[in-house]
């Protein structure tokens, strides 16, 4: 067992975990933050994407012990005080989801993309979404929503 100290959405946690525990399972099962979803567990579906020290990563391809000392942001951290942030509001207005399972990961990857400044082109957003191809579809309104959030 190994100690892990992390800050998740501004709150500090210290836990003792097995080294083989994935960050996705640490967030969901150890910390109870079930907004981060688990789909394929091999990095393809993107549902588990979180921000690790500010950049989007697959939490299913990161060991919890590797995040020791890091700052993590998950989808639960986006709506400060229960108010949807600009990106979430744009998703709401564009009906940018179908079943919604992969939405948390898309929101976190888009948060990283938008944090880099500028207005991403549609092709860049589509490239981003290639890492989030899940079971259903409905990608056009998702591209619209990210574009809208970038211009807002």
């Amino acid at each position, binding site marked *: 067992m190994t100690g892990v100290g992390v800050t998740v959405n501004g709150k500090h946690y210290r836990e003792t975990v097995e080294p*083989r525990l994935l960050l996705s399972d640490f967030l969901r099962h150890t910390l109870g933050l079930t907004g981060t979803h688990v789909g394929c567990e091999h990095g393809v579906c993107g549902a588990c994407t979180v921000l690790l020290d500010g950049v989007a990563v*697959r939490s299913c391809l990161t060991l919890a012990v*590797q995040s020791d000392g890091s700052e993590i942001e998950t989808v639960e951290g986006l709506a400060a005080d229960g108010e949807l942030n600009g990106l979430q509001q744009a998703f709401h207005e564009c009906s940018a989801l179908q079943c919604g399972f992969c939405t948390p990961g898309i929101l976190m990857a888009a948060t990283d993309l938008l944090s880099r400044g500028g207005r991403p082109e549609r092709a860049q957003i589509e490239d981003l979404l*290639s890492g989030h191809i899940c079971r259903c579809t409905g990608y056009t309104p998702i591209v619209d929503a990210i574009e809208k959030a970038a211009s807002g």
Partner: protein
Amino acid sequence: MKPAPFRYERPGTVEEAVALLAEHGDEAKVLAGGQSLVPALNMRLVRPAVLVDINRVLLFDNVRSADGALRAGATVRQADSRLLEHPLLAEALPHVGHFATRNRGTVAGSVTHADPAAELPLCLTLLGGAVHTVSARGEREIAASDLFVSHFTTTVEPDELVVETVWPTPRAGWGYAFCEFAQRRGDYGLCMVAAAAGDDELHVALGSVVDRPTMLDVDPERPGESAAAQVEPWGNLHASAGYLTQLVRVLVDRAVNLARERAA
């Protein structure tokens, strides 16, 4: 699925890392970005006794120019903007995995993993690059032409750690191009080609349809046709052998034309 149990080590220096590899040999696996290793752990395709996490080794995130090459440390990520000064890497890197996996996946990891359908081993081969390794026995530089043996197999020994990948800087007046065909952006390419042209020379390297990145000796007058005549791709679930051969023909011509256009 979840990984089988392993011992986790997080060395802070190269010396500590290579001491662990010397001690554990092929019972140990080096964990860098983990974008290929962790899926294999999750599916229990590999069950190492010890994982040596090199992410906190000092100075491993360095990128430097020396001796006519861009030298990238072992934990330089595929998304690192310092790599974009090399035109071939700038063209190939957007094809490597996805936005979020490039944030974490390393250049050295992709090279050392030696997937024949990976972009970076192909680029290293075309450029005549190398990897620099350190072990308790000493250091050495392995040229790309001596590095890749077959699928997921290199000449890096279990006790050796790749500490740098070495990317020769573009030659003055030469043009470079990378072309790939994949079913979806970020998927493994069905076929990929890298080409360099200049000083009346033409270099072509082929990936995906071969067991390792392979330099081809092509006819400058009919590069695609002569490349296609040299390969015997195995058909797979997604593409027949004939279709893959046609991809070789088309992508070699496309990459060669682009490289020639870009040459001064």
